[in-house]
């Protein structure tokens, strides 16, 4: 089969690889139709995530049809059109039983601090991902869902991570009616988090980034007020001014490990790998939120330490909510919001790229060329 493979920092190509096989009785093999490149894939692409091996196939956002199932699979049959959450999870461990699907203890031998994720290094379990013609999907009875007939492929694809994570991020903010919410990052997850903050009753939603074209999308797609932090000497002071010097009730970090805004922090992380993540957006979130407020962290960070301003967080009495999104928990409600017209996920898709052009796709997304927001990979074009 054809599959994207990692060849070292900033280098990927398409290779012929062996088709995946059933390795566990509850495995399914899915023929991928669409996949996406996620902003968090760029952390792997830049060589930031430990134990990212040469030859690894990335891709944790994908949909397709079931090709084959293992002997114990009861809920799927070959030919089903399925969406697969980015979490690999067993459904029965202490954590899965309590709804923490992203924290499964039975699928990732390499680490206990993170669950299993498709195509996200051996630190997340060593599973090849969905930027390929076929992918092994463990626990076919637990993770995947048959896509409702009314749902478009691209919308289903975006429910597998970006939309679900944005929606989850707004929930982690514990937003109540009348709250002011600041979202750091106008990438796909940030845009969805901003959009979903309104669903929970926010009275103001402010989005911060340094890319004007993305801020323009935040205004049109998510009805948000926007600030380009590159235009201000100190974005935290600007946020205080914008909120009557109170600070926002909720701040959402939708940037994660490679945040810009402080050259030293960015370079020490992204280029020299001396931190698990550049905490610029997280520190701004901590400093911009009001005392007693809530910080929601859905940006992905690596496992090494980061220079987070924890003293400010403690002294301000903040509540910090974090997690990788337990995707499937969000689906029934998201489907309802999509059907009601409250959310139109594929409004943020800007590029549709054949799998063969994967190297150009990663370069474009990494370098933010051509006003890219969300690139989708066309894997099976038949």
């Amino acid at each position, binding site marked *: 089969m054809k599959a994207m493979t990692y060849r070292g920092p900033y*280098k990927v190509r398409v290779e012929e690889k062996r088709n995946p096989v059933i390795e566990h009785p509850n495995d399914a093999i899915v023929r991928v139709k669409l996949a996406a490149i996620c902003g968090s894939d760029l952390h792997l692409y830049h060589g930031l995530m430990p134990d990212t091996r040469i030859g690894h196939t990335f891709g944790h956002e994908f949909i397709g049809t079931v090709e084959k199932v293992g002997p114990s699979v009861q809920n799927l049959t070959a030919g089903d059109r399925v969406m697969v959450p980015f979490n690999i*999870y067993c*459904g029965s461990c202490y954590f899965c039983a309590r709804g923490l699907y992203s924290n499964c203890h039975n699928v990732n031998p390499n680490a206990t601090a993170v669950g299993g994720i498709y195509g996200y290094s051996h630190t997340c379990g060593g599973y090849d991902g969905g930027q390929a013609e076929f992918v092994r999907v463990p626990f076919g009875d637990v993770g995947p869902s048959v896509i409702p007939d009314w749902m478009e492929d691209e919308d289903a694809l975006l429910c597998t991570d970006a939309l679900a994570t944005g929606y*989850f991020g707004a929930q982690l903010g514990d937003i109540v009616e009348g709250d002011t919410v600041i979202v750091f990052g106008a990438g796909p997850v940030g845009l969805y988090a901003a959009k979903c903050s309104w669903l929970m009753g926010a009275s103001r939603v402010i989005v911060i980034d340094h*890319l004007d074209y993305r801020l323009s999308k935040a205004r049109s797609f998510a009805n948000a007020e926007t600030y380009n932090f*590159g235009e201000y000497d100190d974005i935290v002071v600007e946020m205080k001014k914008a909120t009557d*010097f109170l600070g926002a009730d909720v701040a959402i970090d939708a940037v994660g490990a490679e945040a810009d805004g402080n050259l030293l922090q960015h370079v020490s992380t992204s280029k020299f790998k001396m931190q698990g993540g550049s905490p610029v957006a997280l520190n701004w979130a901590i400093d911009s939120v009001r005392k007693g407020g809530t910080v929601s962290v859905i940006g992905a960070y690596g496992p*090494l330490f980061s220079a987070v301003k924890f003293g400010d967080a403690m002294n301000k009495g903040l509540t910090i909510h974090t997690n990788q999104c337990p995707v499937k928990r969000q689906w029934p409600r998201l489907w309802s919001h999509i059907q009601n*017209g409250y959310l139109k996920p594929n409004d943020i898709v800007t590029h549709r790229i054949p799998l063969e052009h994967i190297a150009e796709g990663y*370069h474009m997304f990494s370098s933010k060329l051509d006003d890219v927001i969300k690139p989708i990979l066309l894997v099976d074009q038949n």
Partner: protein
Amino acid sequence: MTQRSERMPAYTPAHPLVPDSDELRARIPGWGADLNKEDRPSVPKLKFLETGAHWDFPERQPEKWPRERSVEHRFLTPVFGTAQPPRGLSGAMRRYGYKFSEGRAAHWMILLYADRVDAGEQHLRSLLSLRPDNPVTETGFKAEFTHHGIRSRFARKRVDLKHMWMDPLIVAGPWIMAVFLARKLFKRN
């Protein structure tokens, strides 16, 4: 002199003025659809739900080679990825790294250095294959010409331009160094 409290919310009990809910509902599609905090999909955080699992503990996947695992696990998890088994010097480094717990920086730093060694090993191996690595095509540099590389960067207020110049050095640096060392060795011999 007393100031109007709504103008100084942080310094008085007053809450900042907020727009009327009906106005927001009319302006924003779906505003307030998830207003009830108790009725949000991830509330409460810990919640027993039907997952589709028909086992208490999953059947074990066969272990075809000694699978590296975190020392913080009681045993090898019943299901695991089998992509890219460790091999060569990088594989030995990785196995060593897994002797340290996830709480130790040594664990992660060794894995990170093993990744760089892996890259070197695999680049060399590729030179002996029918498809050697091509550092130009694999970086996707062509996108600079097909996706407006110049227009996307300049005359814009992008703060990442301050460090983007380092990327070509990170990509090409090791190759240039390798060629330089190979030439030096060749000349000496």
